[in-house]
């Protein structure tokens, strides 16, 4: 869990993304319990309804499921589902801003491609 939330997007989406990231990095393995609405609200000092909205978003998508009276749990296959969802968001979240910034800097498509080939090492 990150230390605090920011103003960049709606808070309930940040809560949902926190949970998804936790599922991806095995903080919350499939079948494990995730923090409750009240635990999120207390930790981030946010409205419990907002926390519930973020959690329910993942319940609606089948990533989490509710055990009545016990809490919210990570569904089987959730990790794969989150990874798939993140991949479809990848274009909008990373590629669109990448191309916009490259255009501002007059970076040609070839230059851009060679940078991508170079990979995540700065030299």
């Amino acid at each position, binding site marked *: 869990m990150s230390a605090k939330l920011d103003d960049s*997007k*709606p*808070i309930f989406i940040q809560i949902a993304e926190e949970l998804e990231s936790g599922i991806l990095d095995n903080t919350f393995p499939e079948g494990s319990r995730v923090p409750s609405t009240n635990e999120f609200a207390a930790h981030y000092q946010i*409205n419990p309804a907002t926390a519930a*909205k973020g959690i329910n978003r993942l319940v609606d998508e089948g990533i989490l499921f509710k055990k009545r009276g016990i809490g919210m749990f990570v569904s089987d296959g959730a990790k794969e589902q989150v990874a798939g969802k993140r991949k479809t968001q990848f274009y909008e979240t990373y590629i669109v*801003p990448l191309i*916009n910034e490259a255009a501002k800097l007059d970076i040609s498509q070839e230059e851009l491609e060679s940078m991508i080939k170079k990979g995540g090492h700065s030299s």
Partner: protein
Amino acid sequence: MNVQFDNVTKKFGSQTALNSLSFTLNGPKIVGLLGRNGAGKTTALNMMAGCIFPDNGSIVVNGSSPFAQPNNVCLINESGNFKKDFSIKETLKSASLFYPNWDQKRAEELLDLFHLKKSKKVKSLSKGMESGLGITVGLASYSPVTIFDEPYIGLDAAARSRFYDLLIEEYERQPRLFILSTHLIDEAAKLFEDVFIIHKGALLLHQDVETLRSMSFSITGTKKDVTEYLNGKAPIHRKEFAGRATAYVYGSEWNRHEAELYRLDTDSIPIQELMVHLTDSHTGGKK
């Protein structure tokens, strides 16, 4: 637990404090009441608590008039809540007689949290201590409608953070309609489910916070690109610096994703700034 204002008007001499104010708040919820100085916030809150009569219009709190049933509501003002000659012990005693759901044990726990001794007289308290006492009484009242009007004069950042924790804890323990009026909007905005903004005595907007956030954003780019994107529609605020322009837009007709495809930089607008610009554009005020 609900509060309903219907065309409420109030004048103080020639000054119009509330001008046909209408809104409905349904709880349980934590609601933020925002507005500029002199917007009419405190007048409206005092009416909810049955302390000021309206000239016209009707007010219903929990199904009855607050003037007939004032103990449905606990209003904590920024100061002057308690009799100066009372000790803290006597203050709690009088609150316990007034509020039907009073929880004495919780009140004493809260006093400890704010390091307040029961033997102390109200007049000997510092501003911060008096705020701590106000928060204690408001939370321990367990009133279905609990209102804090700038409750934390003199409280430092750590004590304010403790207040936010307590508010969430108490809301979960016993859901109620909490109304919080504050100028420290950036700090408190995360606590709100709804905000309503009063401007010049009337309702400017009432919206759930997440919708409000998604309905407003800023766009930044060259003057030409920003002007083209706005296409003659008025933003709520626009500023220019060194050849670049930033426009703040608000409303369901704007789409942030679309703006990004125009190669404009977009950013969220903190609720506090949104309130400032909305109340500016509605006065035809400064550019």
